[in-house]
């Protein structure tokens, strides 16, 4: 048993190494040349805007976290004495511990996101400057900066989980840590998504369509808000999102491991194994990150993909060696391998539907010559088809992991959880490749706005194109991982309810369960609608302001008068934050309401319904949005009439529809279903005892 306790210390060590490397890379990035005064000035606008938003976001989230922590402290201090309810005891220590775990989860996620964003706003201008010298130099800089987020995120997560497990010895408390991370992730991702798309739509519709100025033109009043959005949405938001899935999958398996009914030694072993997977994942990611390099004349896209595949192989080898030599059930290895392969397949399948090398994007571009309606119908249809391979991948991973684990005498559900952890263990590498995208996107914007030469823009374009592919792969990967994670969390929920002495029976023959399924299935579409309405509402305000500035000050377009960027940044921030209230209440309140009113069985149905529609909507929206975006870009290369043609106008409409699909609602759904699963598991012992519809 002591061996496995030692693994918790090793996990903390691995986390510290990961954070240490992140700091090293951060300071390495800061040492690079930030470029000309003009470039620094442009970068400072983006940095100030991003910092201002994050300060406002974290201040609001801090207040919310304290309120939720207070509620958790009260609720978990009141423990039922018996399964049937009746008398209760006051256990303040348990309540405070859970509240502190919640705060620690929120804080860790916030720190990782903040570190990622800090380095992103420093790296963007340095990448643009490095692009003056070579693509290889610019790539190294931007990828190392992305790695700061990837490594900080996994480091903070593993340290947080290990410390809480060591401190309390109870995986259920780590659920509180995970819940804290999830709440922050939900709001950071949704808020960032609303911010970035409202700014993007305003900048494009007024700047590009109405006024005719190119992308990233400094005369566009919304251009700084657009670039800030890349950071708060794609760096801080996506980082928090994967942090949340990473922690949630690990915690779910910990809870399952603790409830397998094994001997105390094996119980500790199977509780700690997910942390061991994280340790190997961190080591594999560190090696993979070190091997991602581009030589002059090489393309950055294959280098990123190569890094992901190398990391996956190294991790699989580590796991094989561990399972072989540490006398661990071989089912662990096969379940891990299943998750890894499923993750890579789902990621690359998303790429098929969003890459202009393949039929879906090209066909959508071609039919755009017949107008916006046909573009939208075609893109939406391919989005629906794109669900198929990913869902088959998740279903196959679920079954293979289940039966592989059962075959070796391990709990099948535990195997499913391990496959989710296996998929997410290499998050260090995945997030590094993902965070690289917005950094090079910003670098391109800075190069444009500060008037760097065309050869710099050509390099920035090439870097940016690789970033878009990495982004598509990460989205597919994170949705697949979330699907497997919530299946494990669903099982953990059932275990927690049964641990409270209440037998759970989730059958579709029970009307109360059917009601729960319908309510759960309704939630992801409703949540998506609220976020997309927030985008349109905020974009509308920003469009009005952008038009006003162009109209009242002709000097802006003439280039003799600087636009008021700050006004648009401020509108985007305030709009995004105020729009978060209702979705946040929905995500936390609906499962609790269902549980406390209809009971644990209905809540089980609720989770099942939300998982299925959540995964399907997330895949549809992410892939359809990416497809519309790339169909427009494909036309912009001169195909089907090129920029300004009727096909292009139709594709712009499709892209605008797809913007909140792919960058606001779609990616937020992973976090929504994780939050709802976590809040259910966390409150399950209380719900099991106190509910109305008995």
């Amino acid at each position, binding site marked *: 048993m002591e061996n496995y306790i030692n693994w918790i210390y090793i996990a903390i060590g691995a986390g510290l190494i990961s954070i240490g490397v992140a700091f090293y890379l951060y300071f390495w990035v800061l040492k690079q040349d930030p470029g000309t005064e003009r470039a620094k000035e442009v970068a400072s606008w983006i940095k100030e805007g991003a910092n201002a938003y994050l300060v406002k976001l974290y201040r609001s989230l801090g207040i919310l976290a304290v309120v939720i922590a207070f509620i958790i402290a009260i609720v978990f201090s009141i423990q039922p004495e018996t399964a049937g309810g009746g008398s209760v005891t006051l256990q303040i220590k348990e309540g405070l511990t859970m509240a502190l775990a919640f705060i620690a989860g929120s804080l860790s996620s916030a720190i990782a996101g903040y570190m990622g964003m800090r380095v992103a706003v420093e790296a963007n201008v340095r990448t643009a400057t490095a692009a003056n010298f070579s693509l290889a130099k610019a790539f190294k800089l931007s990828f190392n900066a992305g790695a700061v987020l990837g490594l900080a995120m996994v480091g903070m997560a593993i340290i947080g989980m290990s410390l809480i497990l060591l401190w309390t010895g109870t995986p259920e408390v780590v659920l509180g840590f995970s819940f804290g991370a999830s709440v922050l992730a939900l709001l950071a991702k949704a808020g960032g998504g609303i911010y970035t798309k409202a700014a993007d739509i305003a900048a494009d519709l007024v700047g590009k369509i109405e*006024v*005719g*100025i*190119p992308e990233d*033109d400094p*005369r566009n009043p919304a251009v700084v808000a657009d670039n800030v959005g890349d950071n708060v949405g794609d760096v801080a938001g996506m980082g928090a999102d994967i942090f949340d899935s990473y922690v949630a999958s690990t915690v779910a398996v910990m809870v399952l491991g603790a409830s397998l009914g094994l001997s105390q030694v094996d119980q500790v072993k199977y509780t700690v194994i997910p942390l061991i997977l994280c340790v190997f994942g961190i080591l594999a990611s560190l090696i993979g990150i070190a091997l991602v390099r581009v030589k002059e004349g090489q393309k950055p896209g294959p280098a990123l993909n190569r890094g992901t595949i190398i990391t996956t192989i190294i991790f699989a080898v580590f796991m094989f060696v561990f399972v072989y030599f540490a006398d661990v059930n071989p089912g662990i290895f096969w379940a891990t391998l299943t998750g890894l392969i499923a993750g890579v397949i789902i990621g690359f399948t998303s790429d098929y539907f969003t890459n202009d090398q393949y039929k879906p994007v090209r066909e959508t571009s*071609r039919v755009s*010559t017949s107008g916006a309606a046909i573009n939208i119908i075609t893109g939406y249809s391919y989005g629906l088809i794109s669900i198929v391979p990913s869902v088959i991948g998740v279903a196959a991973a679920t079954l293979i992991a289940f039966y592989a684990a059962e075959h070796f005498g391990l709990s099948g559900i535990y195997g499913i959880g391990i496959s989710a952890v296996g998929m997410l263990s290499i998050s260090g590498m995945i997030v590094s490749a993902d965070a690289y995208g917005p950094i090079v996107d910003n670098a391109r914007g800075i190069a*444009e706005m500060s008037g760097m*030469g*065309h050869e710099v*823009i050509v390099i920035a374009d090439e870097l940016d194109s690789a970033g878009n592919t990495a982004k598509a792969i990460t989205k597919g990967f994170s949705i697949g991982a979330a699907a497997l994670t919530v299946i494990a969390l669903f099982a953990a929920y059932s275990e927690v309810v049964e641990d409270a002495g209440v037998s759970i029976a989730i059958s579709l023959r029970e009307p109360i369960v059917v009601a729960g399924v319908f309510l759960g299935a309704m939630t992801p579409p409703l949540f998506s609608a609220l976020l997309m309405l927030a985008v349109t509402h905020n974009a509308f305000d920003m469009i009005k302001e952008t038009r006003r500035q162009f*109209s009242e000050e*002709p*000097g802006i*377009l*003439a*280039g*003799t008068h600087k636009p008021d960027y700050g006004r648009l940044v401020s509108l985007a921030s305030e709009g995004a934050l105020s729009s978060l209230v209702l979705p946040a209440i929905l995500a936390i309140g609906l499962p609790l309401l269902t549980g406390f009113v209809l009971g644990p069985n209905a809540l089980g149905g609720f989770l099942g319904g939300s998982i299925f529609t959540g995964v399907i909507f997330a895949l549809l929206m992410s892939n359809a949005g990416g497809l519309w975006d790339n169909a427009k870009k494909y036309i*912009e290369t*001169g*195909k*089907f*009439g*090129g*920029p*300004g*043609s*009727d096909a292009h106008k139709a594709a712009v409409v499709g892209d605008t529809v797809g913007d909140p699909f792919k960058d606001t609602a779609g990616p937020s759904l992973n976090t929504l279903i994780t939050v709802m699963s976590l809040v259910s598991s966390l409150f399950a012992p209380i719900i099991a005892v106190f509910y109305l519809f008995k």
Partner: protein
Amino acid sequence: MAIYLYLSLLPEALIASMLSPEEFGTYYAVGSAKKSRGQAMFFEVDPDFRHPYFRVEEAYERCVPHEDGSLKSSVYISVYRVLEHIDFDALMHLYLTTMDGRTLELSPSNQIPNGKEHLHLYQEVVPVSPMVVSRLGPMEFIDQIVRNPVSLVSLPAIVFTELQLGELADDPEMGLMENLPYSNRDHLRQCLTDVKTKYVSTKMVDRSHSPEVQYRTIKNGFFVGNQTHLRYFPMPSPEEIRINNYRWFRSANI
């Protein structure tokens, strides 16, 4: 202080200005206090050019800085039948300004493309703006439009540009046209087929086409002709524009 003379094509007008061509392009496209906006195409005309049809001296006298010291942007000299009264030897450079105010300078060239072996798509700019297809090369096209003594319909002078046709230039029946940026491409194909296979040498594709030009679709450059003169202002290659005029390159979506 220097005073410039510009022949604007959109709309057809002769204008005196204290602004340099780049400044004038920006002003004309986006900078007007009256908030009028749009693409601009204009020639820089020799400031010493005079013609009894235009009251140039009077305009020059009015072309003085404002009270706050800012330069006078424009004094309109004439807005009707301007081109036909211009001496083409006085045309110095042609400037193409994008909708958002970036300006590209085109210099004249004596190497006028012929292109007899291909079909052509012409966008007329001044004085009228139809889009036509023809099997005539640019020089023959001017002869037909401006110098044909037997034609009932002719123009005193013309500015036009030739647009890209891709594979349709050689094979209107079967050539790939999906990447062409024009509306109503099936009609365009039919018109090209007609001029290739029937007696007519020129056919109108769109009688009221917008005189604004998608610059990236220009095949070779702008042609200016009247009874006695023909001037040609070639477009640089996209690569040359990208290297030397990156802002314009981006702005024109090339």
